[in-house]
């Protein structure tokens, strides 16, 4: 029975110590200071604070299964991957892995700029655990896959970052592991290259390879895996069919503080207590079709009165690109003196953003885009479209076209794509 299991994890856990005891002291001086403190009895209260990056993770993965591991940043998915790839040891639990493991936590780790592409193929292959003979056998295929054979004897430092990633990924793609651990690295390169990569992944699936695909994006997982393991705060919250996992996950993309707004939250004159997403008719949802309208209801709580606050809502794509921005002030809305709790409702024009995951960041500024009064993350939503993805740009709009062919002029008016086509 256990023979068809590729990975058996039982109670895997990883604990980190925070504060003085487990802190890393980058210099000896820090250590001396910490030591002196503890001798003087002025030990940090934080000492010995435990933090479980992953706790009690148990699951079975059969050979040939493709499983997505999903979680927000810091949920513990990378920790799990690092344990399974043996980069770090678990603090608790055990795992049994049946087969050769290939782990890609980052593409191109170990590439050296001074070496040529050819030399790097051999070095990187070896770092990924391939035998020299294996690399030699696959060398031509690797170079062909990368699509940059003319630069293979050029030092890698002269490569563009795109070429660099292509070559590195080509090497990685030719690793033929029984179990492949992928950390969001599949989404590299241009469209043609990405297609090649997807085909390659499908090829691996046909070969009955087991793939663990880690991502924060439930949707990119959906095309690859029928099963997801959803991790939140180090705990496995859900393990089952991807569709059910998505629902679970959406509920979790709740409010939190924006990382770059550093000020103490208790000093904010107001806080956002909720952000509900719905379609134009008010049906709550977080997955929108391309071209659909979205309504946001932002609940706020006042601590101190504010004159003419400027509510700003931005959509940030999963790769950090700020895609668009709505501002009450720019739209000429004056809120006056706000002193009581309330709700701000915003209806977006039809979403023309391409299919991706977007997080909403909500900022409240003083009038005239002055000081930030409050900065919070208001959850996430997805735009769904079969065709339009990031290769089509940030957004897509239809245009009016004119074709001029030998005398006859034909004007073709813009014809928007059918919603949800």
């Amino acid at each position, binding site marked *: 029975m256990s023979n068809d299991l590729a990975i058996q994890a039982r109670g*895997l856990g990883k604990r*980190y110590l925070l504060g003085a005891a487990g802190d*890393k*002291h*980058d*210099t*000896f*001086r820090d*250590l001396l200071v910490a030591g002196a403190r503890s001798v003087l009895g002025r030990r940090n209260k934080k000492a010995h604070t435990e933090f479980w990056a992953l706790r009690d993770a148990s699951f079975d993965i059969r050979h040939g299964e493709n499983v997505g591991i999903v979680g927000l940043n810091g949920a513990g998915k990378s920790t799990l991957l*690092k*344990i*399974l*790839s*043996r*980069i*770090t*040891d*678990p*603090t*608790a*639990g*055990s*795992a*049994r*892995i*049946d*087969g*050769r*493991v290939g*782990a890609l*936590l*980052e593409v191109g*780790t*170990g590439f*050296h700029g*001074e*070496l040529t592409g050819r*030399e790097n193929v*051999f*070095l990187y292959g*070896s*770092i*990924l*655990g391939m*035998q*020299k003979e294996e690399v030699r056998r696959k060398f031509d295929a690797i170079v062909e896959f990368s699509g940059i054979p003319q630069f293979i004897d050029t*030092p890698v430092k002269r490569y563009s970052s795109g070429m660099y990633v292509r070559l590195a990924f080509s090497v990685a793609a030719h690793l033929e592991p*029984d179990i492949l651990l992928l950390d969001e690295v599949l989404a590299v390169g241009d469209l043609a290259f990405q297609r090649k990569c997807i085909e390659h992944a499908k090829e691996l699936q046909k*070969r*009955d390879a087991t793939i663990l695909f880690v991502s924060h994006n439930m949707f990119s997982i959906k095309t690859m895996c029928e099963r997801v393991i959803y991790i939140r705060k180090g705990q496995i919250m859900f393990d089952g069919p991807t569709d059910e996992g998505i629902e679970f996950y959406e509920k979790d993309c709740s409010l939190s503080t924006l990382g770059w707004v550093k000020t103490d939250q208790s000093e904010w004159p107001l806080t956002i207590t909720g952000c509900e997403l719905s379609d134009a008719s008010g049906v709550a949802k977080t997955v929108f079709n391309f071209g659909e309208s979205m309504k946001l209801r932002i609940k706020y709580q006042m601590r101190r009165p504010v004159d003419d606050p400027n509510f700003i809502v931005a959509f940030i794509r999963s790769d950090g690109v700020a895609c668009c921005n709505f501002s009450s002030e720019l739209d000429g809305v004056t809120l006056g003196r706000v002193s009581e709790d309330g709700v701000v409702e915003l209806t977006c024009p039809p979403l023309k953003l391409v299919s991706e995951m977007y997080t909403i960041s909500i900022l409240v500024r003083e009038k005239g885009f002055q000081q930030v009064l409050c900065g919070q993350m208001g959850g996430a939503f997805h735009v769904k479209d079969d065709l339009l993805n990031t290769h089509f740009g940030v957004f897509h709009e239809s245009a009016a076209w004119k074709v001029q062919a030998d005398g006859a002029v034909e004007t073709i008016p813009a014809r928007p794509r059918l919603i949800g086509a």
Partner: protein
Amino acid sequence: MTSVARPITQIRPSAGWLDLDLGSLWRFRELLYYLVWREVKIRYKQAALGVAWAILQPLFTVLIFTAIFGIFARFPSDGLPYPVFALAAVLPWTYFAEALRRSATGLVTDADLVRKIYFPRIIIPVAGASSPLLDFAFGLIVLLGLMAWYGIVPGLSFLTLPLWLAETFGLALAIGLWLGPINVRYRDVMHTLPFVIQVWMFATPIVYPLSMIPEKWRTLYSLNPVVGIVEGFRWSLLGTGRPDLAAVGISLVVIVIALFGGVVYFRKMERSFADVI
């Protein structure tokens, strides 16, 4: 798919103290080879004079030492031409210093690998101690040329050269295994090491002969394990002095113990490298 025997991996928290797992070093020998190969390649890649530097560096060092210590300070040199006398010790010392430096700091230099890739970490200090061997080989050719110039022919003792070299490798690696994990936590090691190496060189009979040390201080002085090694090299290459067999034996035992302890310590510490580096 025909099922070839698949390797089974067990992952669990820290194994015992004495789980040295030296077999993994063998399984990953190709990576070791490539890491050494990488060091050697990139060292001379961008230099116009390329590998010639491996020869020029010890030559210049000896030139300076000859001028300062041989000509101005008139240090004795056991009756040998000063350049030969100095080079025979500068070579192993340079190798030792470089091997020690690289094996102690390699983990931090290759922090990206440690963070993102699994492999037995011990490969890094072993590669660090191995890669300067090539420079040593080039330097040795220079020395043999210089000896021929002065008409000095090495005797049968030359055959013991690998023993001294192995001892140097072992000592550098042993110290590297102890310092490497400390350096992962406290980068102070990196900053202190060059200074320590410099002082250490003057506490070793490199620019001056062992005979300059008063008899009553000899034993204390010889506690520096490199003293025996350097004297061993001089004896092996130039036939000066006679190695004290007891001292050689003791230093061998000390190196083996330090190496063993280093491996145990390193294995114990390597589990947290990826977390703290």
